[in-house]
């Protein structure tokens, strides 16, 4: 029999700390597979800020640093500038990147910083118990929007890739989803382009991965994946928003 798929070696033996069915694990596997396939594992430093994936360094076997909440892009900038040979990426939640860390994100993008950002949009703050995030949908109930997110009070869901695409620094900006095998396969392709952008020194790259938080959404994992398709993707459509020449 031919081996078609196999847990990548860059994924450690340690059990993840994620809730059952949490797509964080899927994103981890995609990253690990790509680092292996692109022969980057030994060159990589991953910046893990706070969020459910704060312990990510236990699961993906590369050098790693842990950033303060929201500051992953700044920390990655610091590493990459003094050590341009390293492959430097961040793995950030939507609270981390889009709320407290938006300044660092926008500026790393505007500078065209040679880093790659994996951005997990699960529509809330998973780790701290399901508070509203900038990506929370209108009407969605969270622990800090108990009456549903209201645009007149909380504004509208934030579209980070669309916003960053208005800048000149990024080489690759895209959004993918983790809800189905088809979308996950596509997500991997997008991530590969993002990593390629850095390897080829083309500029900043970011892939938003539309994810789920079954625990705080109070759904089964299967229901959560369905919600992505039915409710989230219409607001956060999959697509590539910026593709520099050379990112193939």
């Amino acid at each position, binding site marked *: 029999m031919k081996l078609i798929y196999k847990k990548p070696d860059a994924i450690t033996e340690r059990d993840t*700390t*994620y*809730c*059952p069915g*949490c797509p964080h694990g899927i994103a981890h596997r995609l990253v690990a597979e790509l680092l292996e396939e692109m022969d980057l594992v030994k060159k990589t430093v991953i910046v893990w800020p706070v969020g*459910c994936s*704060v*312990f990510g360094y236990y699961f993906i076997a590369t050098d790693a640093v842990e950033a303060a909440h929201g500051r992953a892009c700044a920390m990655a900038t610091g590493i990459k500038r003094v050590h341009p040979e390293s492959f430097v990426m961040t793995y950030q939640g939507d609270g981390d990147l889009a709320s407290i860390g938006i300044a660092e994100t926008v500026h790393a993008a505007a500078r065209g910083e040679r880093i790659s950002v994996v951005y997990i949009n699960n529509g809330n703050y*998973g*780790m701290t118990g399901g508070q509203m995030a900038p990506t929370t949908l209108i009407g969605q109930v969270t622990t800090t929007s108990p009456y549903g997110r209201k645009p007149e009070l909380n504004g509208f869901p934030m579209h980070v890739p669309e916003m960053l695409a208005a800048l000149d620094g990024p080489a690759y900006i895209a959004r993918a989803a983790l809800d189905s095998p088809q979308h996950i396969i596509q997500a991997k392709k997008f991530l590969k382009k993002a990593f390629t952008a850095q390897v080829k020194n083309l500029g900043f790259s970011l892939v938003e991965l539309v994810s789920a938080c079954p625990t705080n959404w109070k759904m089964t994992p299967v229901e959560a994946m369905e919600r992505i398709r039915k409710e989230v993707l219409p607001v956060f459509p999959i697509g590539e928003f910026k593709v520099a020449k050379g990112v193939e």
Partner: protein
Amino acid sequence: MQKGVVIAGFGGQGVMLAGELLAEAGKDEEKFVTFLPSYGPEMRGGTANCDVIISDKPIASPVIGRPEAAIIMNLPSLDKFEPLMKENGLLILNKTLIPREVKRKDVRVLQIDAQTVARELGNEKVTNMILLGAYAEIEKPVKLESLKKALKHFLTGKKEKLIPINEKALEKGAEIAREFLGGK
């Protein structure tokens, strides 16, 4: 009188509810009470436990370093709390999920196949109440009646209909405890 108990298990096993219920019952009896939840090192999907103290006097620390009693709902929690137990402390175990025996010889152990009993009662989710009922019966921090009364605080609205089965579970636990005490 001061009674402290640690309740520990997976998130989702009703550890916190059991603890809060006990604390609420203590408050209703006009005792001093503290309830202190703590979530394990794994933020998500890991173990959870809480410390409940019920006392006649103001309570100094709500932290139970060395438990005199513990309700243990899964194996990792047993691994964690067994060595911390005070001598002659009481360990009430959810045998259904704890395949191993207790190693210490200087503690009292009550093993209940609680999850099975709960399933028989009609709802696996009341496992916590069976164990809590047993604890209350043995250590008597509060009256069983107070626990039952306190259920009304927590099971409101749609959940109100769950009160009877929870009451039954508390009673069932107490019954098992009486057998255990009698058997000694």
